[in-house]
């Protein structure tokens, strides 16, 4: 089959029909972007739920700063940490994330210095640990770890551990680990958000009581400068779920409605367009075109218009995902750009293209040349 001319004719049809083509593209764009946006919400929520359900340590100490709080006080002292560990029967996972950003030899080195309570990890208190793949020069490392402590390659069992820096998990292998006993050397660099105390609910004996004891201990010792709360992200998300799920469902069904409208709208648009062009197709057939060539032309036009809409819709969907906050997601959960959304979108558009092509080509096939010319 000779294809070049079919491309030429398909594009000249789009050009001479530019207004309708643009309208169809707009329809595709709106449908797709709404779909991408809502799917991203849906999948982000799913991922977040899964993530929280699978967290080993599912109780977290949340420290919030009161407005009246003065800068000089620190939210938790080393003594507090020992007391917490004591109250929770040595089941707490305690670490302080001290992000480092160090210039050396014309380069900036960025890594996490993490002060950890070694007691739970069975490590040697006179040693700092690192993973050589981190590619930070020895000199830089020596400058940040406490004096009189030596650097050792971390045991393989430790590498699989993670810390949570608020937004994402950071593997131990990307961190320099030091004993928590040295935290006071770094007081100036520690923020309240950097202090992490985490438990696994299953391991905490007498859970409710212990939690209350820890909370009241911290409030009492810090004179109301900070608020302390032990939360379970999983349970917290569950309490938001009803409202969130309902909002997402609303958007999702709206977008599905859009997609249906897009599919039906496009189908009817191309059917109407076929009626309008029937005579022109008939003339081409009389002049020696094969029906397969015309079918190919029609397919090109449908595919081009949908692809442009798909592209614009995807871009708009991504923009909406990152920039448009309708206040649906609970707390500070980020709406992520999820590949599944795009996969689904591709399937939908592909199906629509296929249905449209089949329906229009079917009409082309069932029409007789003479009846097409006469109309």
């Amino acid at each position, binding site marked *: 089959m*000779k294809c*070049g*001319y079919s491309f*030429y*004719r398909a594009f*000249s*049809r789009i050009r*001479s029909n530019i207004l309708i083509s643009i309208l169809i593209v707009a329809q595709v764009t709106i449908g797709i972007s709404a779909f991408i946006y809502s799917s991203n919400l849906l999948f982000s929520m799913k991922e977040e739920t899964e993530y929280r359900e699978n967290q080993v340590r599912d109780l977290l100490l949340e420290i919030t700063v009161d407005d009246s709080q003065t800068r000089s006080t620190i939210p938790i002292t080393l003594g507090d940490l020992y007391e917490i560990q004591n109250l929770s029967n040595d089941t707490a996972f305690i670490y302080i994330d001290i992000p480092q950003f160090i210039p050396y030899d014309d380069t900036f080195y960025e890594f996490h210095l993490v002060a950890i309570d070694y007691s739970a990890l069975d490590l040697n208190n006179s040693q700092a640990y690192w993973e050589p793949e981190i590619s930070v020069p020895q000199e830089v490392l020596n400058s940040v770890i406490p004096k009189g402590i030596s650097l050792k390659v971390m045991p393989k069992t430790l590498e699989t551990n993670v810390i949570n820096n608020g937004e994402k998990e950071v593997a131990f292998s990307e961190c320099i680990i030091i004993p928590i006993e040295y935290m006071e050397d770094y007081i100036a660099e520690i923020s309240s958000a950097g202090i992490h105390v985490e438990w696994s609910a299953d391991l905490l004996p007498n859970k409710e009581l212990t939690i209350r004891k820890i909370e009241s201990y911290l409030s009492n010792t810090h004179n109301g400068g900070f608020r302390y709360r032990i939360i379970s992200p999983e349970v917290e998300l569950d309490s938001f779920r009803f409202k969130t799920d309902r909002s997402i469902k609303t958007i999702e069904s709206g977008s599905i409605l859009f997609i249906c409208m897009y599919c039906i709208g496009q189908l009817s648009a191309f059917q109407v367009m076929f009626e309008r062009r029937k*005579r*022109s197709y008939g*003339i*081409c*057939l*009389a*002049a*020696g*075109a*094969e*029906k*397969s*060539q015309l079918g190919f032309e029609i397919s090109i036009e449908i595919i081009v218009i949908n692809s442009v809409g798909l592209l614009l819709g995807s871009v708009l969907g991504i923009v909406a995902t990152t920039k448009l906050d309708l206040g649906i997601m609970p707390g500070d959960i980020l709406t992520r750009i999820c590949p599944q959304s795009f996969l689904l979108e591709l399937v939908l558009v592909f199906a629509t293209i296929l249905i449209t092509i089949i329906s229009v080509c079917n009409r082309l096939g069932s029409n007789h*040349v*003479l009846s097409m*010319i006469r109309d």
Partner: protein
Amino acid sequence: MIKLHDIRKNYRVDNVSVDVLKGIDLEVEQGDFVCILGTSGCGKSTLLNILGLLDEPSSGNYYLNGYNIAEKTNKEKAFIRRTECGFVFQNYNLITDLTVMDNIAVPLGYDGMKKKEREIRAMSLLSKLGMEDLAKKHPNHLSGGEQQRVAILRAISNNPKFLLADEPTGNLDNENTIVVLDLLKELNLEGMTIVMVTHDLEVAKYASRIIRIEDGIIANI
């Protein structure tokens, strides 16, 4: 080159079979200029459409250059339509979205000719009739006579062996009728085989042979 044997065509309208062609036998030789005459509704267009492979007879055989058309696939028939025969309609049937040049090049395009070559060919055809400056215009902006001449150029753009014209002057005034008929006559003199349908005896005089259809059969030759 064209040989029809006992061609019949009937239509079913409301479960009643209407015989339009009732056994046409016809031979057209290379270089002929044949005119088919007959009253309105006698089946002239039906016959011409069968000759142009736009329609199929209900029975009978159509041999083109010795090949039985009934044995050809749709693809092969399309090939014959764009390379061996040109068709001219009473109402021109130009494509309004396309320029004059693109209209002329339609059969060339579907035959796989490149854009540059198509344009050169279309322009050379237009210049033969002194209509180069119409190349970029759209058909709606042309007079009837101009449109029909463009339609004839489209029909002959791929150098077909024969040309079929269904009342090509039916929509034209006297002056344009003469221009179009002169063009057909000239093509015929250059060797083109032409079969033309008309009900106008004056028009028929341009042909070298007149066939009259009456009651679905050929009355006399």
